């Protein structure tokens, strides 16, 4: 293999695949990045066997070939290259990659590309097409609610379902639930339901840049995998086996109290409350006070810690229904407010021990449920 690439392209490609590298695997080749010539471009791939990322970059190819080199080391090296042109020259016999840039000459010991796990080459003919901007927003609004607890693998995923022209994502960590719908530009060839690791979706959102039009999604039959393709990159992920718990059943159908409040004001109040709450049990108390005939309602947001002190903020609100004191994990409330795009947000609930439903006002596509903290 003998190729010449631009340093900035190589850096971008290595950064895209870096999160799939598995530096502490028992399989040494998983700590490496695959470098291969591929139809006039250079292909970079990394995988940790659960998730794999491939990225294609432009290159001038003089001689075809492939190898793998330690990903972290290679990226560090490329970042410090003195010249914009990087020449890669592989000694096939010793699997030594000679890297030259300006006056800098390096020999890096690689592992034969044969040892690198093959990446799937799926057929994208029947792919589901989703606008990148929509898909990224969906991931941003849903993936954070997934669990990080390995004891509950199903909840570490996002339930993605496609039916006709509607795609729905749902994630829950057992305490909160995020559901977001979106409309496809074309009807999907067949209905699909799968649990995709939240981490893989977050990575996809990271590598799909905003200018791109569509992301294509396919689930090759019988492989338990999903493959996404965006411009110049592909991401493959194992699907999570199991049954996602029925979330429809826990979304309240009615409420006794509805509070309308400015998203930004509530978010700011939560961030302040969190400074105190995080020292203790993470509790923020929302004292929702009724609107009278003529005066407006308000929400008193407060937090206190045994060790550091307390905080209180009054936020103006329109309150319909009963007054209520309800407590939430402040992090949960802050995280959902951070992904709500509308200027106003509604909090619907029925009792201090009933779920709180958070909805952006004027956007029917998003819904978030947080279970309250029970004050003993």
């Amino acid at each position: 293999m003998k190729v010449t690439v631009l340093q900035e392209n190589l850096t971008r490609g290595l950064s895209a695949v870096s999160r799939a590298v598995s530096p502490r695997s028992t399989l040494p080749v998983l700590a490496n990045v695959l470098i291969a010539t591929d139809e006039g471009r250079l292909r970079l791939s990394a995988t940790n066997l659960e998730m794999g990322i491939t990225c294609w970059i432009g290159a001038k190819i003089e001689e075809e070939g492939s190898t793998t080199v330690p990903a972290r080391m290679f990226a560090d090296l490329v970042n410090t290259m003195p010249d914009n042109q990087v020449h890669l020259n592989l000694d096939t016999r010793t699997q030594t990659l000679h890297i030259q840039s300006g006056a800098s000459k390096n020999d890096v010991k690689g592992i034969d590309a044969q040892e690198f796990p093959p990446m799937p080459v799926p057929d994208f003919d029947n792919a589901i097409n989703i606008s990148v901007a929509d898909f990224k927003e969906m991931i941003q609004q849903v993936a954070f609610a997934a669990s990080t607890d390995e004891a509950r693998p199903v909840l570490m995923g996002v339930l993605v379902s496609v039916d006709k022209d509607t795609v729905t994502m749902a994630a829950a960590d057992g305490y909160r639930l995020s559901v977001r719908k979106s409309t496809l530009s074309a009807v999907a060839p067949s209905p699909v339901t799968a649990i995709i690791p939240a981490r893989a979706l977050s990575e996809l959102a990271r590598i799909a840049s905003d200018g791109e039009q569509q992301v294509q999604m396919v689930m090759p039959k019988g492989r338990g995998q999903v493959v996404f393709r965006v411009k110049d990159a592909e991401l493959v992920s194992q699907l999570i086996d199991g049954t996602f718990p029925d979330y429809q059943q826990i979304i309240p159908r009615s409420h006794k109290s509805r509070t309308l409040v400015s998203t930004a004001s509530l978010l700011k109040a939560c961030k302040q409350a969190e400074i105190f709450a995080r020292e203790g049990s993470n509790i923020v108390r929302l004292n929702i006070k009724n609107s009278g005939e003529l005066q407006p309602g308000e929400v008193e947001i407060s937090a206190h810690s045994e060790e550091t002190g307390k905080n209180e903020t009054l936020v103006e609100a329109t309150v319909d229904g009963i007054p209520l004191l309800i407590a939430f994990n402040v992090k949960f409330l802050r995280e959902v407010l951070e992904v709500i795009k509308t200027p106003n947000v509604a909090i619907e609930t029925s009792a201090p021990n009933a779920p709180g439903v958070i909805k952006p006002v004027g956007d029917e596509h998003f819904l978030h449920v947080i279970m309250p903290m029970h004050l003993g």
Partner: protein
Amino acid sequence: MSTILHLDLDAFFCAVEELHDPSLTGKPFAVGGRPEERGVVASCSYAARAQGVRSAMPMGRALRQCPELIIVPPQRSRYSHMSQQVMDRLHNLAPLVEQISIDEAFVDISDLCPDSNISSRLKVESLDTFESVAAGIGRKIQRQIMDELGLPCSVGIASNKLVAKIATETGKKGARGSSAPAALTVIEAGREAEFLSPLPVSMLWGVGPKTEEKLSSLGIHTIGQLATAGAENLAALFGENGRQMWHHARGIDERPVSPEHTAKSISQETTFSRDISDDKTLERTLKELSVEVGKNLRREKLAGTTIKIKLRWPDFTTLTRQATLPAATDLDEEIFQTALGLLRKTREPGAPLRLVGVGVSGLGAPARQMELWGAQTEKQRKIQSVIDDLQARFGDSIIKKGR
């Protein structure tokens, strides 16, 4: 004017063991680890004390001192259960209770006593002098703890914590023989300095062996001599500590009885009498400690987010590891599972340990995060509260979770 009662259970661990095995009564025995396991005496019976055995003595030496000494392995959960029973009775006596160790506490009984100054002035009219009322309260609590729990204790009563504690100690020292002292000492307000005066300086808080030596070289041996040394002189020699010492020597101590409600963490640890390398035994100990911590949390109506383990290797290096939970907990099982995860991450299977500990910090009101699909945890919580209730009434061994 306050009145403080200090209570110290007599040879507590031994007294509890005698309740479980009455054949031990009157015999020289010691609670602690076996000599071949580097054990030390944690507590010794009065019959053993009469033969020169002392607490904290290596068990080997104790055996040489008293060859017929019976060694009883410690039963931690028994002691903490009995201790709690005693503390409950103190809480019933008066609301302000400060527990300072498993077998010792202060109780503020000011509201139960006539003002000692006034009563001494009005002695003619009132038969209820301070001394007789205070002694009555002391005797009553001693009798109650003996009758209901079978435990002897010594009591000191004075106008402050310092003098009350020293009163208990002098009472215990004054009693000789092979049975529990069950002493009661009341120091009337105004006579604190007089009471302390002949006692050795080492009985004061904050006078350790080093300070004692330094004072001794200045010709100061008794608390009375210390009181006449002058605040400024002592401050020059020992800094702010010296001034404090002078106040104490004159029987002045302003610290209130402060119930520990501002605990920043709740923890339990156990030092093994020999290094333990068996995974099963260690994990069982971890479980027992977690249960104890959980129970303490629930009793204090607290819950915490950070679970910590403490490990000491045979070479005495000690390390702690912690994990933070998404929501505060006061549940034994959740504490144990987190602690177990930390232990398994930190320790190679089979590696020997001298000590393990479990603690919970990040404490707050026991608010708990409700779950979306939460029926299971709610069930666990109900079971836990039934277990707590049963154990509080009938002792820890009445019910245990299966493994």
